[in-house]
């Protein structure tokens, strides 16, 4: 065991894993964090806590993660390179580890242009791949990025994101290979709506044998409305929403949109489950965390190990 986390144990035991996502509040409200977390308890093996996603200031991922851990819910801390240099990242990771955090998702981070402080300065001292290597060296070599020794090292189960739908498509899998080489243990993909393209990507993943080196969790997200489906299709770079999905949401109409969104999500889970090399799903229902239990249950993923 590299970290001894629940997620690592479940994946290593060969169970189909379920992770979910929790967006911390734009306030100091601990209640919001606890309420969302309690909803997910027993339905997700570990819960990602976003790090100021879309560059909007929110409660710190590590702080919220530590709150989850105190209630027996395992957090996956997200760490981006946007707001911290290598000094701050390593410092925060020592702190996170000391607080009992065992899973870490390494991200480059959304550009601040999309957030609520577009005039801020960004850091990007490291990129996600360099971050992964740094965390792996902290764990396995007991070394800081500068080469100095760490007396008591952090033990993280190291994850990364990868987007099978952005471009250049033929390079995406090679980039995943770079992340594997840098030291990841698991991957959570961008939201899958285009299962066909995802299958093709997985085929390339298998050709390189990457599915045998790391655990791959397919990202899924329930749609709330036809408008949301269209917006994602047309306005979110790196998001691939096929016409037939938009059509299903449109046909469902306003009243049944959420229900259909959940149905689509379950259908996608059923399909990706059958793809060789997919070790689990990562359900991203930001600001709709309460729907996760229904999805997990209807997808036949209960009880959790």
């Amino acid at each position: 065991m590299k970290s001894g986390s629940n997620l690592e144990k479940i994946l290593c035991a060969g169970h189909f894993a379920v992770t979910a996502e929790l967006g911390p509040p734009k306030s100091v409200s601990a209640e919001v964090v606890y309420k969302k977390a309690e909803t997910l308890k027993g339905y997700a093996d570990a819960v990602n806590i976003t790090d100021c996603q879309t560059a909007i200031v929110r409660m710190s991922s590590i702080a919220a993660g530590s709150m989850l851990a105190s209630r027996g819910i395992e957090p996956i801390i997200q760490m981006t390179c946007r707001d911290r240099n290598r000094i701050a990242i390593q410092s925060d990771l020592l702190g996170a580890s000391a607080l009992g955090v065992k899973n870490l998702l390494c991200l480059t981070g959304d550009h601040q242009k999309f957030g609520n402080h577009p005039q801020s300065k960004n850091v990007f001292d490291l990129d996600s791949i360099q971050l992964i290597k740094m965390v792996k060296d902290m764990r396995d070599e007991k070394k800081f990025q500068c080469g100095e020794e760490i007396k008591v090292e952090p033990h993280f189960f190291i994850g990364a994101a990868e987007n099978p739908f952005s471009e250049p498509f033929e390079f995406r899998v090679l980039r995943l290979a770079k992340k594997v080489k840098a030291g990841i243990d698991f991957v959570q993909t961008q939201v899958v709506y285009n299962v066909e393209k995802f299958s093709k990507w997985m085929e390339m993943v298998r050709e390189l044998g990457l599915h045998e080196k790391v655990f791959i969790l397919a990202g899924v997200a329930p749609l709330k409305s036809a408008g949301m489906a269209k917006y994602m299709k047309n306005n979110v770079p790196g998001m691939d929403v096929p016409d037939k999905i938009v059509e299903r949401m449109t046909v469902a109409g306003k009243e049944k949109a959420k229900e259909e969104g959940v149905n689509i999500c379950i259908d996608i889970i059923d399909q990706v489950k059958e793809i060789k090399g997919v070790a689990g799903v990562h359900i991203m229902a930001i600001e709709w965390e309460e729907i996760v239990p229904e999805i997990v249950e209807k997808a036949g993923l209960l009880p959790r190990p």
Partner: protein
Amino acid sequence: MIVGERKPMQEILDMIADHKKIFIAGCGTCVAVCMAGGDKEVSILSSAIKMARNKENKPIEILEQTPLRQCEWEFVDELKDKIEACEAVLSMACGIGVQTLVERFPKVIVYPAVNTTFLGLPEEQGVWSERCGACGNCVLDKTGGICPIVRCSKSLLNGPCGGSQDGKCEVDPEVDCAWQLIYDRLKTLGKLDDLTEILPPKDWSTGRDGGPRKIVREDMKL
């Protein structure tokens, strides 16, 4: 070259509001080529300021001159008489020119009329874009001759990120994704294998992060 853009008129008028006689100093090199602060722009700005001030019934006297370069002692020395005859200088050079005047004429007030924007090239008539971040540690040999430090919005050394679509950057659909350009170029050169190598964390100390920079060449000193 250094690319600049003239500041908005109102900002310039506000800076010189209290002065009755100023000197507008252009620069005949980079900012002349990017049409922000050369001879022609000096005379246009001068006329515009005079018109604005006449309208307010606060006429202003303006002297003008554009040295070949505002960033070298020998060229700015030519401006001495005009500078000393005025209350303030409005420099249409880049930030380097402004500071050259400040250092050479310590008692004179110098205002910037141009925003120094980036190091780049004119892509076509009327379009300039950034090419170099002056990081002091060039990586172009590893990235197919395309700079990810300033041309990738996140300065990724191991790109592209997940926001690359249709060859464009997620931050601005008008901007090319630098990593798509790098990928295409290395593909053309038959060197895609280069991209499987992980580029390690960059030593930023040679850039601005290391503090103000200076080069001293003993072999060149007099």
